[in-house]
């Protein structure tokens, strides 16, 4: 495992944190993420993208995007993280490197309003239908308020007609 960590550390401009349970967190700059992922797959041989999603860091005004990769030989999860601007969230697609990224990107584009360059499906309706409000997984979207405005709750033994 340490061998892999050393090789990741050689990549320019990364910050590596090793957590217990074979988890390696790699923070990279947002412009370098595609290069880093390409390097991870084709040089280091990390072939599996398990997961990719967004954390809304509203206090810092950023979106954190993480890619959970899995290395089969040394059984390590490498988690690549980037921080992008919350007001202008744009990332580049990684689906040329990892095909499953295509559909995770569709999901985060819908749930967080992240713009994905190079992915023509991102931004089309995926899970939600006829959604008119702001992207619902953002922290400033108040789901309780939305429910109170749009749905009628059952309060007491009232007749339904």
């Amino acid at each position, binding site marked *: 495992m340490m061998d892999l960590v050393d090789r990741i550390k050689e990549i320019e401009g990364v910050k590596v944190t090793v957590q217990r349970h074979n988890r390696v967190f790699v923070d990279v700059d947002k412009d370098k993420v595609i290069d880093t992922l390409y390097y991870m797959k084709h040089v280091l041989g990390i*072939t599996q993208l*398990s997961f990719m999603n967004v954390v809304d860091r509203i206090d810092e005004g950023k979106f954190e995007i*993480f890619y959970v990769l899995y290395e089969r030989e040394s059984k390590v*999860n490498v988690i690549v993280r980037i921080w992008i601007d919350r007001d202008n969230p744009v990332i580049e697609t990684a689906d040329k490197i990892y*095909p*499953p990224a295509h559909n995770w990107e569709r999901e985060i584009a819908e749930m967080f309003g992240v713009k994905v360059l190079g992915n023509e499906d991102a931004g089309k309706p*995926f899970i939600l239908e006829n959604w008119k409000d702001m992207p619902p997984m953002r922290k400033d979207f108040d*789901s309780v308020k939305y429910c109170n405005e749009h749905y009628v709750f059952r309060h007491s033994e009232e007749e339904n007609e």
Partner: protein
Amino acid sequence: MSRTYELFIGPNHPGIPGNFSVKLELEGDTVVSAKGDPGYLHRAFEKSMENRYYIQNLALIPRICVPEPDINEAAYAMAVEDLMGVEIPERAKYLRTIVLEMARIAAYLFWMGGFAATLGLYTLSQWTVGDRDYALDLFAELCGVRVYHMYIWPGGVRRDAPPGWEDEVLAYVRYLRDKLIDYDNIFFKNVMFKQRTRGVAVITKEQAIEWCATGPILKATGVAQDVRKDDPYAAYEYIDFEIPTLTDGDSWARAMIRRWEFENSLNIIEQAIKKMPKKGPVWTKMPNPLKWRVPKGEAYAKVESARGEHGFYMVSDGTERPYRVAVRGSSHTHMFTIAERLLVGQRLADVSHILVSLDICPPEFDR
């Protein structure tokens, strides 16, 4: 002149494993393109979890994957334990293992019935779903409910097994071993089953790795990858078991892998009950659940579900509510990356059994 037409399979279609829809473009009865249409089961778990205390989320998470709810509880508990630095007692580890394997057995029995039904054999689904019910009875005895157990929680398990429960589990395992012979005779050795599934929807090893498959799909192409071995959780490190692999990669191989995994789970349960400490605590002393403050940090916890790798990515900001919980269901990759590519060129009659052979579980990707 070639003409194609569109066909919606689902959400209301008996050949679809749950409430979701696939939009097929067909030429004759050959699939030209397939597009999944998710969202019919979207319940906004990830949003709701941010509004609740850690302990309250226990009521939500089993509902993420309906046929096998315990994997969610285990992954959630592991993520919280990872952040809090909690070690769980020995007996709790074994109880977790037994419960997770029972849930796997229940999921596989359900899957066998569904798979046989898509091939036109309804007898097996009558048997397996009926037999699965006895597992649910054991769950009801253990934790009071049949389907959503909420048994595994951060720090261990919710309560100890009632006296005599282990013996009942062993009796059930013996019963299933007998029944497996029947299942083999009626289905897995059946000529029709082989003819319908041999060479259908082949995934090569390179494709499986490129498309990031996990679980039985990957094992059916010859890669022995299993979270239980690679990153042992619960008591799997003390248990001796093999990962079955085949190299065919077709629908048949995926079905046979699941049949072997089923047998594997029976072995694991027997071993776990034999090795389990007979007495001892099942829960690490934790503070008042309403005042849990999980330290700041990120954790990715993963378990092996009946379908593949199931993971929870948890971010805590040090308060009593999780900052973000993101759920990785293996069906997301299996449906939108693999099935959409795999269905192209297949016949319409095979579509539903290919979907079931990939074991698509819609609540997992809708969440």
